[in-house]
Structure formats: C-alpha cells, structure tokens
C-alpha cells in the first residue's frame, strides 16, 4: 500500500530539472487539456453512469441502499477532514525533525516514523480504542482521528522530508549568505519551493486516508462502510450493497484526485509558459 515515500524523492527532483529548460525549449503537451477521453473522466463517467442505471432500473434494492447510507458519508467526511487537519502539521514537524541536526529531536522523529510505519492502521485503531480504554477513555471519533492522523503523520513526514531534501543546497547557502538565519531560510526560501514537490504526494495521502477511514467501522463508528455492512447484514444483499458502497467511494476519490491535480497544476506555474 505504501511505497510512495520511496518514489517521491525522484519525483520531487524532476520538476527542479524542468526549470533549467531554456525558454525556447520544447513544451510538452498538457495531457489534461484538450483530451476528453482519459482514465480519470472515463472512470468518473463510468461510475456515475453505473450508479444511475442501477438506481433507475432496479430502484428496489439499489435506490434503497443509496438512501440508507448518506449519514455514514457525513461521518466518513468528518473523520477524513479532521484527520487531514491533524496529520499535515504532524507530518511537517516529523519531516523537519527527521532533517534536524539536533540528535535528540532527530531520534524522536525517526523512532516515531519507524514505530508507526511498522504497525498496521487497523491494529492501531483497535489499540487506541479498545486497549488504551483501560487507562484513557476517548470517543470513537477521537480514537479514529488520533489513529489515522498518527499513522498518516508518519507517512507524510517522509514526504515532507523528501520534498525538502529535493531543494538544492545552493538555495540554503545563498539564503544564509544573505543573512537569513536557519528558521527564516526554511520558512521563506526552502519550504515555499518544496511545497510544489510535496503537495501532490500529500494529496495522494489524503485520498488514501479517505479510503482508510472505512477501517473505523470496527469501532462501531457509523461511517459509510458501517452503514453498508449494517444494510447487508439485514438484507443479505451483499452484492448489491457493496457495489453501491464501492461506487460511492470511487466517485468521491475521483473528485478528490481531480482537486489534487488542479492544485498541483496551479503550483507548477514555473514549469509552464505563460
């Protein structure tokens, strides 16, 4: 599931290389524009079409299922948004901690990443909700947000680290020689540039996060998946129920991935000819 942290470093370096292309150089065609048939639009149109056809032709199970689940969708969004809000700062801190020359901070951040990466998210959810309940009682929503943001904070930490490392050392040296201190250099020079590299993989992490919120149904959290399971358990219509659930997740994920790619192209204005 998670091999993108390794990929993000080379992917991060690539845009830097593109800046060196002379103004008169060859500009690659933008794959997103002027090309209506691509994987994304095909998937979205296909998913929406299948959902519409199923609900109009066989409203008996399918429309009933679609009507049953919207409350679950709200919980799914709630968990996702709160987890994203917590995970991104955590990821940034972890990434900076991993790059820190202070040995203690570096060790803490690295240990956090190693430990969290080595434990499956499902186990973390069980641990926080059921195992830690002995000492500390937290609600289902809080447990879900803690588990997911801790898990993804570690993954995102690696993304932030890779993004920051992809900025050439010359940038830091120039900034320091102009009189900026280390913190100013990071905030005003390195991070703004690293952001272009960091945003796409962080966007991917957020999409993965939305999908992984389906795991919180083990805590009897009434999310989209739990509503689906509840409906299937009552009606014994497994095929119909999970088809609808899968289509809903797919449509949301496709819309989110479009949002990420729009954000990505906005940030890449240096790579484009105006």
């Amino acid at each position, binding site marked *: 599931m998670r091999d993108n942290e390794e990929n993000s470093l080379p992917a991060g370096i690539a845009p830097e290389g593109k800046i060196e292309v002379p103004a008169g150089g060859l500009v690659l065609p933008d794959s997103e524009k002027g090309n209506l048939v691509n994987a994304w639009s095909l998937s979205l149109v296909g998913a929406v079409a299948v959902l519409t056809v199923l609900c109009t032709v066989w409203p008996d199970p399918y429309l009933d299922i679609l009507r049953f689940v919207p409350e679950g969708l709200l919980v799914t969004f709630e968990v996702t948004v709160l987890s994203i809000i917590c995970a991104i700062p955590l990821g940034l801190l972890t990434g900076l901690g991993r790059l820190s020359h202070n040995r203690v901070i570096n060790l803490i951040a690295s240990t956090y990443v190693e430990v969290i990466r080595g434990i499956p998210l499902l186990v973390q959810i069980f641990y926080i909700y*059921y195992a830690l*309940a002995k000492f500390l*009682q937290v609600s289902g929503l809080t447990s879900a947000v803690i588990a997911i943001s801790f898990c993804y904070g570690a993954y995102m930490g690696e993304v932030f680290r890779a993004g920051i490392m992809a900025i050439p050392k010359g940038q830091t040296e120039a900034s320091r020689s102009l009189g900026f201190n280390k913190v100013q250099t990071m905030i005003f020079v390195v991070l703004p540039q690293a952001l272009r590299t960091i945003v796409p993989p962080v966007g991917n992490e957020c999409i993965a996060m939305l999908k992984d919120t389906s795991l919180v149904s083990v805590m*009897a959290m009434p999310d989209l998946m739990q509503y689906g*399971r509840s409906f299937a*358990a009552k009606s*014994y219509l497994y095929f119909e129920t999970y088809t609808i659930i899968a289509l809903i997740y797919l449509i949301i994920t496709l819309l989110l991935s479009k949002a990420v790619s729009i954000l990505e192209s906005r940030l890449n204005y240096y790579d484009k000819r105006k």
Partner: protein
Amino acid sequence: MLRRFLCAAFLLSTVLCSSAMAAEKIVVATNPTWPPMEFLDDNKQIIGYDIDMIKAVAAEAGMEAEVIMTAWDGIFAGVAAGNYDVIASGVTITPERQRAFAFTVPYYDVQQIVVVRKGDSASGFEALKGRVIGGQIGTTGVFVAQKSGVPMTIREYDDVGLAMQDLLNGRIEAVICDSPVALYYANQKEGFTDHLSVAFRTEATESFGFVVQKNRKDLVERLNKGIEAVRAKGIEAELIRKWMGE
C-alpha cells in the same frame, strides 16, 4: 500451457469426484464469539453447544462435520456462495432469512436479553430512550432494538465481546444479545460477572436453526432426521446440561 491447464482440470476433477464419493463430510462454519453457543477455548479449539450439537446431528445422519471458523459479518454470504455447507452459529430463524436460505427445524429456543452495568437498570426499551445500546452487527438483538421504535443510538460491533468490553469501559449503556450469551457474560465470564447485570428480557421467543444453501433440500432433510435422532436418544438434554447449566 494448454497441457498444464488440462492436467490441472484433470486433477481437480479427480479431487472433486473423490470428495463427492466420500460425501460423508460436511463443512460447518461458525463464528466463535458467542459463548456458550460457540467460542474458542484456551487451546484455540472451537467448542460450545452448537458445535457439539451439529457434530452429534451429523453423526446421526451418517456424516462427519468439519467445523471452520469465520467472521459473523459475511457468514451468510459464505453459505450462499457455497464456501461451506452449513452454518451452526446460533442463527435465529427469521422470515427475512428464510427467504434467502434454507433452515433445519428449530433446535434451541432463546430470547433477547439486555445487559447493563451493575447499579444501572432498565425495565424495557422505553427506559433506554435516548441512551446508547450496543450489539453485534447483523444479529437479531440489533434488529429487535431497531424494531422497538424507541429512539436510541444503536452501535453495531463486529462481535459481542467488543460490545461487552465497551459496556464495561462505559462508552455504551447497554448491550442486547441472545439469552444464553447474555447470561454467560452476566453469570459466568470472569471479569464481567462482577460488573454486569441483566436488565430485562424480551417476551418474544426466537428459535435457532442450522442454515443451508437455499437449493439443498436434501441436506436439510438429512439434518432434520439427525436432530430428531439426537433428541430421541437424549443427547440433546445432555448437551443442554453440559453447556447451559441450570
């Protein structure tokens, strides 16, 4: 490639034929989270009333029961798909389930019991209005709570043990489940008996049956004969004494 495929097909058919010839083995699925009907002992063996019962019934019908473990959520999908022959997992016979599956004759009667923490009480669903009740997903306890029409939050756990644990932890205020299971947690299970008590039981009685794929009437017939024989020989009474106590 083709040769390999033919080889595999030949092997598969011999395996299938030989198992069909033996024919005396049935695969029984159970979700061992429902003590004392079915649960895991310290040696990770599946034990319980249902297990002894289906083994005795199968033996009387001239078959051998192989019991496998499966999750409750999806146990019905598995029998529908033909992954196993029988479900022996404290399954209540309901009209909805009868539309989708075939059942044997009832082999055990239960009611629904609501368990609360000691010191708390509830005389009926009305008393739980606006409160949080837990149960195992897809069990009749949850359905009964939903059909009661009383506005309360119903939380559906993967297994009843997690719901009981959350009741102890204080995140929910009641748990509803079959009477043998509720009594087991309230009266026998270590770590739970001191903290839990029975609030009330429903009036309606439910009956457990073994579940078989809809189109396998022959197997239902054989199992029904087995249940009859088990009853006639007094094995059933013995098993009830063994697992249910007084």
